[in-house]
């Protein structure tokens, strides 16, 4: 609970939070105190000064019996607020248990109750309130019960979704497995997790009830004379709006402020509960990357040096990365989550989120620097030469468009061919990625495809143009093992047959080593080692790479020996360590590692590593 309460504390101290809490306290104080202070003034008749406009004696004028309207508005706070609170509480008391029924009972009855709740929610609350009030009888009682019944379905719906989400949660399953008793399940596991949203909704519901009550009273169906609330006063004021418009102003402002206060307070609480403390978007100075390696000449498909990606707020998830890809070459990028491998790829593909800032000392893609091109030129260049394959084929395709259309769209836009021709070409490409019955498949929607087929369709999409570079970001992670190998195979065939280059990004060293000639290992936003597959198998130089390889069980791992493991946590993109980012977790680290950044040093023509104390294969063998 402590975490939650500090979050709420923070939210209440925000400007909106301060306004909302001040308003709420004000309304509560008025509701309690106003009748004691102004009750006499509010009911004092003064026929001589009846139906007057605003004056220094009566700031908001007087009503038909000469009573001061400001006093009446202030005194009316109590009745308006109390009735609203009662109605909201009653509504919650009816709705919450009803909503919990499906989770408790389940089966046919549960579904029936759910259906009924959904039906009831569709009916407008005010109408329900009017009809109920008509049955019970016009007056405050009828209005309160009517509104309670009208808002009960909303509580029921909320309590239903909350209770079913908690009922299906794994922590509840785990607690049940341990044998936690039913009462304790309810008090420790269910209630704490649903109480917060229910309380927030209740606050908002008080605001709604306040408005509905005002509406009913305004129509003459709510509070009856001699009692008075804001709605009744508004209705009286409206009749005189031609003569003294300010007499309607008081009650109108009171209703608005009262309702807004509760709604705002509820939203402040909801925001605190939902998203946690607001993210700070400090605009920090970007660390300029020093050029580490001299730009290589040649006809590389991609050549980038000193690539740095930063976000407002100080996160620098990619730091000073160099990457060169020759035509037809498949380069692998390996790293764990947070290593910056995906952002590196997205930076190359010009698909970074718009808040990200990219800098590079040298960047050439297909022979030109995309940063110097106009938006249209860049679109044309990347649209025809670069293909991207994404991690999750389930979400990478647009659910609302037919697959053939999505695949063909590229040619429609960049090659200017007709929709029909584009479709024919799409079918042909779908066939090329071995989707059976491609013509019929092209007419289907993505949800009718299996995961493997969707990934094939995404690859087909990239093949519409003749890509010189394919960027594949974890293309097989979301797929089953047998399907995984098929997709890898397809990627290899595609690059071979079209002699395009590829960047394959994965957390799985083995997958990358199968397909790539060269592997780049990233850690904490930096390239820590770059090596050919033979060296990777024989023994990498960087302790991180070595540990990464040794920690994954293989079909050859000795079952009697523990796996290598890497203690501790990787630094976050916000940490700016002076030395080697792996030093805090490295068994070989010395003081130098912690204070001085090791450069990416060439160990052989195809091997570079950034480490002060690289692992020596011979030395390891001796141990």
């Amino acid at each position, binding site marked *: 609970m402590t975490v939650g309460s500090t979050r709420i504390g923070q939210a209440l101290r925000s400007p909106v939070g301060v306004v909302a809490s001040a308003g709420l306290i004000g309304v509560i104080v008025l509701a309690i105190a106003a009748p004691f202070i102004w009750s006499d003034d509010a009911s004092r008749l003064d026929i001589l000064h009846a139906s007057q406009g605003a004056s220094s004696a009566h700031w908001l004028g007087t009503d038909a019996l000469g009573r001061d309207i400001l006093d009446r508005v202030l005194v009316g706070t109590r009745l308006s607020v109390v009735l609203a609170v009662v109605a909201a509480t009653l509504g919650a008391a009816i709705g919450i248990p009803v909503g919990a029924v499906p989770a408790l009972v389940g089966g046919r009855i549960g579904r029936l109750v759910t259906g009924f709740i959904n039906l009831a929610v569709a009916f407008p609350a005010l109408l329900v309130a009017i009809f109920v009030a008509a049955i019970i009888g016009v007056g405050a009682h009828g209005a309160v019960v009517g509104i309670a019944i009208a808002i009960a379905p909303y509580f029921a719906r909320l309590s239903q979704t909350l209770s079913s989400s908690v009922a299906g949660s794994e*922590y509840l399953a785990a607690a049940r497995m*341990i044998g936690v008793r039913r009462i304790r399940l309810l008090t420790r596991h269910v209630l704490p997790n649903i109480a917060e949203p229910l309380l927030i909704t209740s606050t908002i519901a008080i605001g709604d009830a306040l408005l509905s009550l005002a509406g009913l009273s305004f129509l003459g169906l709510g509070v009856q004379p001699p009692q008075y609330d804001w709605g009744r006063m508004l209705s009286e004021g409206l009749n005189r709006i031609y003569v003294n418009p300010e007499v309607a102003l008081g009650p109108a402002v009171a209703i608005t402020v009262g309702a807004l206060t509760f709604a705002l307070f509820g939203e402040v609480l909801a925001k605190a509960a939902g998203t946690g403390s607001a993210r700070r978007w400090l605009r920090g100075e970007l660390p300029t990357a020093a050029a580490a390696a001299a730009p290589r000449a040649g006809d590389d498909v991609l050549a980038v040096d000193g690539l740095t990606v930063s976000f407002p707020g100080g996160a620098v998830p990619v730091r000073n990365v160099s990457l060169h890809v020759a035509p037809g070459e498949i380069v692998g990028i390996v790293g764990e989550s947070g290593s910056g491998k995906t952002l590196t790829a997205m930076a190359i593909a010009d698909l970074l989120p718009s808040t990200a800032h990219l800098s590079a000392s040298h960047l050439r893609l297909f022979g030109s620097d995309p940063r110097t091109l106009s938006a249209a030129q860049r679109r044309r260049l990347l649209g025809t030469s670069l293909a991207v394959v994404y991690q999750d084929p389930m979400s990478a395709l647009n659910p609302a468009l037919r697959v053939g259309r999505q695949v063909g769209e590229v040619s429609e836009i960049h090659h200017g061919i007709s929709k029909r021709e584009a479709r024919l070409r799409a079918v042909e490409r779908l066939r090329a990625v071995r989707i059976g019955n491609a013509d019929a498949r092209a007419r289907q929607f993505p949800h009718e495809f*299996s995961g493997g087929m969707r990934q094939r369709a995404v690859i087909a999409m990239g093949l519409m143009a003749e890509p010189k570079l394919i960027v594949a970001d974890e293309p097989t992670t979301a797929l*089953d093992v047998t399907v995984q190998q098929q997709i890898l195979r397809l990627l290899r065939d595609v690059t071979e047959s079209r002699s395009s280059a590829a960047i394959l990004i994965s957390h799985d060293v083995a997958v990358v080593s199968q397909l790539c000639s060269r592997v780049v290992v990233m850690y904490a936003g930096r390239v820590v080692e770059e090596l050919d597959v033979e060296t990777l198998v024989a023994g990498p130089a960087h302790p991180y790479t070595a540990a*990464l390889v040794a920690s994954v*069980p293989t079909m050859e*791992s000795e079952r009697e020996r523990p796996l*290598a493991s890497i*203690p501790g946590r990787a630094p976050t993109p916000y940490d700016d360590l002076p030395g080697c980012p792996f030093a805090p977790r490295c068994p070989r680290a010395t003081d130098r590692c912690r204070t001085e950044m090791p450069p990416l040093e060439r160990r052989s023509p195809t091997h570079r590593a950034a480490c002060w104390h690289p692992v020596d294969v011979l030395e390891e063998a001796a141990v």
Partner: protein
Amino acid sequence: MTALEARSVTVRFGRGRRRLVAVDRVDVTLPEASTLGVVGESGSGKSTLARALVGLVPLADGEVVIDGDRLRTARDGRVLDPRRRIQMIFQDPFASLNPRMSVGDAIGEALTVRGGSGRAARAAEIARYLDLVHLDAQIAERMPSRLSGGQRQRVAIARALAARPDVLIADEITSSLDVSVQSAVLNLMRELRNELGISMIFVSHNLATVRYLSDEIAVMYLGRVVEVGATEAVVSSPAHPYTRALLYAVPSLGGTVPADLELGDPPDPHDPPPGCPFHPRCPVGPHAYPEREECIVRDPRDGAEERPHRAFCHFASAPAETPRPEERFHAARDR
């Protein structure tokens, strides 16, 4: 001694055309102090089997016997385990810990159920279980939101251990963790097995991981255990073509992408193929050998007891005669 035995476990979901047999008459035998690995792809029913054994999913048929006691089932078919002798660790440690309960409370809850003693004794017990999973005792004060994925998973393991189970079921416990953290959790499980002698069912889609931890391996496909046997035997001489396909697909460091399996996509589990459910994808089945009509019409479950590794395959050859998987697949492709 068998720690756990399950007979003919069947789980069905949905009704009408959405009906699905997620687990189809599966038998499980788990000897005391041993580990059974359950491996299969998504939709194979491996996680549902795990959930059925701990009573989270109702059984449509079958029974669970633990230490010789047959567990009763509730009216809806859920297995009742009043002495909490089976515990499960879930895949996602972010979902399996109550976000509003501290680590100490979460573990303490499992202790309370056994009948607690004083506050100090309880704190000592919590610290002991945290130590068992190599976590600092101070972590007991923390809320789950302040722990890393690996730490959370250890807390989940400690909580399961605190209930002193006879059988521990681990369902994909490493698949939501980062590579460098996975090995630590695997080492921990290995240690617990070796030092505490806990019987374990280890469920995973990753054959290499399952092999590393298990004494026996059961391979699941479309709700059935299509092959089961001692780990080394299954890995070195698989009897079922699906097991061979899985083995074949495991990527190895510096290896090459295998020749295309041409397995195609898994079938719709709502509408499984007749006969042997693997036959439309089988590289040694009717598509490669048209004379093998048996695969389409006859369920290979019949006669499985006599075959090596109780394989659900009409043509499960004796393990010794099995050619290397690559050759087999090339043979299938060339035809």
